[in-house]
């Protein structure tokens, strides 16, 4: 198992844990679940790729208030 496969497996397992929070009686705030899922999605988007200037610039955020 290479490192990338291990990462993907870890993320898959984490998504499984999050799904169990959704379906079980455990009360985890939906906002937190959504935030973590967004973090995972963004991580999956970049994992295993070369780091570039454009990539970093795309991650910048702007204050909304």
């Amino acid at each position, binding site marked *: 198992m290479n490192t990338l496969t291990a990462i993907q497996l870890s993320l898959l397992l984490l998504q499984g844990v999050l799904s169990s*929070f959704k379906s079980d009686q455990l009360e985890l705030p939906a906002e937190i679940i959504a*935030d973590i899922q*967004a*973090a995972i999605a*963004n*991580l999956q988007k970049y994992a295993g790729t070369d780091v570039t200037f*454009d990539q970093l610039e795309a991650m910048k955020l702007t204050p909304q*208030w």
Partner: protein
Amino acid sequence: MKLQSKYLASALAMVMLVGVGCTKKPVIASPPPSGQPPLVVNARDTLAGASGFVANAQKQYAKECIADPTQGKCKYINQAVQGINATIQAEEAYCGWSPATAQQVPQPPCIPVASAADGLSAAIANLTTFVNQLKGAIQ
């Protein structure tokens, strides 16, 4: 409730400590595809997780934070935004990149600037703190 906190802490730790939040011994990290230094790749992965997390929080709380930006979570979101942008700048500096080098074709590779390593590590440590504070505020 304790169980929830335990799982949540583990989940967030996996996401947020993917990279340099845990610089000495990352839990998981992307393999450097073209031999890029682990610090560079781990910092990017940490930024990716944090950026996704915070961008989603901005959307979730936009309505109430625009109405009352003095709320704790609204402040923590802005603090995390600043932490992300500062970490990006620190990573770009570590790689020797700037808006000027970005105009070059092809773009120059990341050539680590040793003197900028501490700045990048400090930025990541701050970012990890900011995201943990935000997590605590919205949990």
